[in-house]
């Protein structure tokens, strides 16, 4: 059971949110110039990290805004939530 600190509304129960998967996947600027493999990498391939993981959530039953969460995918600990425009934390040594 997660307690998620929405950057706009404060801490709320996970049932108010929807998970949106891996964060910081930028749409390629010149999509038409990509090879099929590069497009597949953007569209389908995921880091699926075991450890600290930056992901998107939407506060569906609250302010309805998207934001980013850094959560550990083994312990489920959340160390940081930040608005969509924010930058991810630089990875540390080890998971």
């Amino acid at each position, binding site marked *: *059971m997660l307690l998620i600190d929405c950057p706009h509304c404060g801490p709320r129960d*996970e049932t108010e949110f*929807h998970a949106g998967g891996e964060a910081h996947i930028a749409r390629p600027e010149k999509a038409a110039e990509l090879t099929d493999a590069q497009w597949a*990498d953007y569209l389908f391939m995921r880091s699926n990290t075991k450890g600290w993981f930056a992901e998107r959530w939407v506060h569906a039953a609250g302010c309805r805004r998207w934001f980013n969460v850094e959560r550990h995918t*083994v312990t489920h600990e959340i160390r940081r939530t930040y608005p969509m425009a924010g930058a991810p934390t630089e990875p540390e040594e080890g998971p």
Partner: protein
Amino acid sequence: MQRFSAFALLAKSLGGHQGWSRQWRLATPKDAYDVVIVGGGGHGLATAYYLARNHGITNVAVLEKGWLGGGNVARNTTIVRSNYLWDESAALYEHSLKLWEDLSQDLNYNVMLSQRGVLNLAHSLQEVRDSRRRVYANQLNGVDAEWLDRGGVKVFCPLINTDESLRYPVLGATLQRRAGTARHDAVAWGFARAADSRGVDIVENCEVTGFDIQGGRVTGVQTTRGAIRAPKVAIVVAGHGSVMAERAGFRLPLESHPLQALVSEPIKPVLDCVVMSNAVHVYVSQSDKGELVIGAGIDSYNSYAQRGSLPVVTSQLGALIALFPMFSRLKMMRNWGGIVDVSPDASPIVGKTPIDGLYFNGGWGTGGFKATPGSGHIFAHTIAHEDPHPLAAPFNLDRFSTGALVDEHGAAAVAH
């Protein structure tokens, strides 16, 4: 291998059942093998068995991080069926179901396959249309399938609440009579015993920590019990596919999620079939011990924790009680989670990887157990011939570049 039979049982009973030998050897890893299989779950053990049985490749090691029967092979809800919509999936799962039907004889190990019938309920007009379409598709593909209307559901499974006043009333169901359940850990033990008897080394408590790759070709693996050389390495690790792929230096289109199940206190026999509902999302069967085995969907976020969250349990129990009001007083005894690797099209990835000699079998999502024998069978063929088995060919990794997806999301009788 000590064969099981009525006579053996009688003979051993005279000695107080003290004379049974180990089901498989406690193998110490050798320096080199012809094939190393990473992951000793159901699919990995089945792969080893069929490599030995069908292709005569017996110099094989199965490396398991934990113990046999500790992962998803013993964490699922044991449902076996083949009523998938698309041709590629129906062929694969029907192949598997046919292997299931002879598996106990083949392995000389009772996997307790119980073909008690699986109902997939439809709760809306659109679901009725989709379900009937799937029945027709199944029949064209030689998979047994029937459509039951509301009255037919009530006759087949009188316990289901078919009251029209339900928020999501039961309008009908598809029925696959040859589908059912199997004893999940017997499947792991049976394949392990049969593979071991043909010379396969099953090495428990041995985690693969890296892959030796030279010039784009795999030459062996690094493990917590030392380096092992092998010209062919097969990754079969439900729940950790991406972790292994990263260690080998390629990317996969997988996300790992918890999938939960729970069992009730044991009660007398009340439910003699498997009931699944996609719309209200619960599935239930009764084990031979009398417990109700209850499952539903994945938790929505990525996780490697082997545990899920309570809102999912609350939702599936709400659905269960709507369909079976008499279950409302049952106490739940245990719940647990497994980690499933979900692919974008809800179909598995079986075949070659960008690295020569390295094979991958995973991404089975929430439905891998039913495929155990079929998966091992076609994967062993793929490894032995260095070319995909015809049934495995559509499930290659390249489909995410070519666009030839096998989109079973929502089509495969339950959401994945």
